């Protein structure tokens, strides 16, 4: 089933960390397996926030020397950052296997990211000037507390509660997906994509990387491919209605925008609230009411509808 939610404040920062936590907690019944957030702070030009993991949660119980392996992987990541002339400005060990580094770098981030992901067990969850992508097993409260999200201030964010249907319960199959190598682009999805293998073949032939076998990752890769070809976010969302087969509603967030697309069958829900100050959307109204208890007007977008909002 899965639950998705998104929130964008127009022209100001707000407590998106706690707001997204409240929204995703209200959607827990749609997916208890894992929870993920892509939240956007004030962009800091020149500095990148890189969130990466060097192991899965389940690996932590898999051997007596896991701690040593993790230390060795982190050392290797840092060595490779150095080789790409990236200076580490701060290190934050959020969990034993998930790190948050602030780095300064002015070279080719894609080449650097590919080099780092070549380290065993390592996946860059996000890289960008504003994006913080956090995902782990458990419900929204567990993940928010584990990663200290409640105090996070920012302009917008998207999130996901996952009910695993077609791939494993692990971090690599959890949403959101970063649209590698596009800084600050993240995707969450509710639905099933039926031409996944066909499109994956096309994307892999073009050189795109997949880190999981979760069909939702395709939307991140597909969006990245469209952006690489000069498409706007709106173009990409519009094209996906024709080119992606299946039932889906998905949200894409960039450094300063938030977009949504609904498939031709309109089979996956989304409820929208729009005001001059903010736009909130979720699989169910109950998530919007978690942050806006007063009486408000909401509506369901129709089939093949796409929308893009600016922060």
């Amino acid at each position, binding site marked *: 089933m899965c639950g998705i939610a998104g929130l964008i404040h127009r022209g100001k920062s707000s407590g998106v960390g706690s707001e997204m936590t409240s929204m995703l907690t209200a959607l827990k019944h749609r997916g208890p397996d894992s929870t993920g957030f892509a939240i956007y702070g004030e962009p800091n030009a020149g500095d990148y926030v890189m969130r990466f993991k060097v192991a899965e949660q389940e690996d932590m119980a898999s051997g007596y020397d896991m701690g040593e392996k993790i230390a060795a992987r982190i050392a290797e990541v840092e060595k490779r950052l150095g080789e790409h002339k990236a200076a580490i400005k701060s290190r934050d060990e959020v969990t034993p296997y998930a790190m948050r580094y602030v780095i300064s770098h002015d070279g080719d981030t894609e080449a650097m990211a590919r080099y780092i992901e070549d380290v065993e067990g390592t996946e860059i969850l996000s890289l960008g000037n504003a994006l913080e992508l956090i995902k782990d097993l458990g419900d929204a409260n567990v993940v928010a507390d584990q990663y200290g999200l409640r105090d996070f201030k920012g302009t917008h964010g998207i999130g996901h509660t996952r009910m695993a249907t077609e791939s494993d319960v692990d971090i690599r199959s959890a949403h959101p997906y970063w649209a590698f190598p596009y800084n600050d682009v993240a995707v969450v999805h509710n639905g099933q994509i039926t031409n996944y293998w066909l499109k994956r073949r096309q994307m892999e032939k073009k050189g795109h990387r997949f880190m999981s076998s979760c069909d939702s990752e395709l939307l991140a890769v597909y969006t990245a491919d469209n952006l690489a070809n000069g498409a706007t976010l709106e173009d990409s969302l519009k094209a996906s209605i024709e080119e992606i087969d299946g039932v889906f509603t998905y949200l894409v967030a960039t450094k300063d925008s938030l977009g949504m697309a609904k498939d031709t069958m309109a089979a996956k829900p989304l409820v929208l609230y729009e005001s001059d100050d903010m736009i909130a959307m979720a699989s169910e109204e109950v998530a919007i*009411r978690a942050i806006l*208890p007063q009486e408000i007007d909401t509506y369901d977008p129709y*089939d093949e509808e796409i929308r893009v909002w600016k922060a």
Partner: protein
Amino acid sequence: MESMSVMAEDMGYDPRAGQTRDEKEGTTQEDRARDLGMMSEQLKNRSMEVFFEVGEDENLTYPWAADVDFNKRTELNCEGKTTTEVNKDINGLMEEGYGTIVLQNPRGMHSVGVGILNKLNLIVEGSIGYFGVGLIDGPNVRINGRVGWSCGENMMSGTVVIEKNAGSTFGAAMRGGDLVCKGSVGSRTGIDQKGGTIIVGGDTGAFSGFMMQRGRMVVCGNAGKNLGDSMYDGTIYVGGEVKDYGVDAIPAELTDLDKAWLTRKLTQYDLMPEKGVDHFTKIVAGKQLWNYDNLEPNEKKLIL
């Protein structure tokens, strides 16, 4: 041998005394079954339970329906309650004779008011989530906010009026009563509708009236693609534009009887368009899909 005698004791038979436990305690197997909660009613002849007495007057209420007074009004605050608690509280209040119940702070709660089989005025101050007031038979419901997916699903009688928008599958498999949304609704409105009337003040999404079997649907605004796809019977009226028709849904002549009915219904719910109802399009089943399996392959091709 020891273990066998223990087993026999467990089964209520004491080989040493030559008596069963029932014989010793003066009980029956049925008494013990009832003590264990396995039998809740006495079986009588061919019928398990008798609901109606031979001599009673004909009426349209369920035997367990509470006798409520519409003038007896109360409020029920949903804050901090689960759906089950709210629905149980509604039942409890009806049993106490309250005929008008105002729900406060529902905040998008799912399955509110499902299965009310009683006369009742239910007023919802706010919005509710999925499956709101489904399976109802009798109550008049007014919802001042919006509703999520599948509102009024399988409703059998009564009226439901929603002041704002509604989600998809509005009135799915509905059998009777009036289900009214003054705003716009999502996709698949009235899918599998089997009776009653659905009225939408605004627009409806794709696949509305899919496999409709009976009843009427009125859409004052526009209808999305595939309207009335594979409908068996029933009538759809659309005041705005129809994006496209589904298989076997065809426009029909709007008669004076249709206009009179539309005028009466839309006036009743304060949705009468300023320009009247003459511009409405009437859509019915072409009935080509009936006995589909008996058609020749080339005829099937023509239909599809």
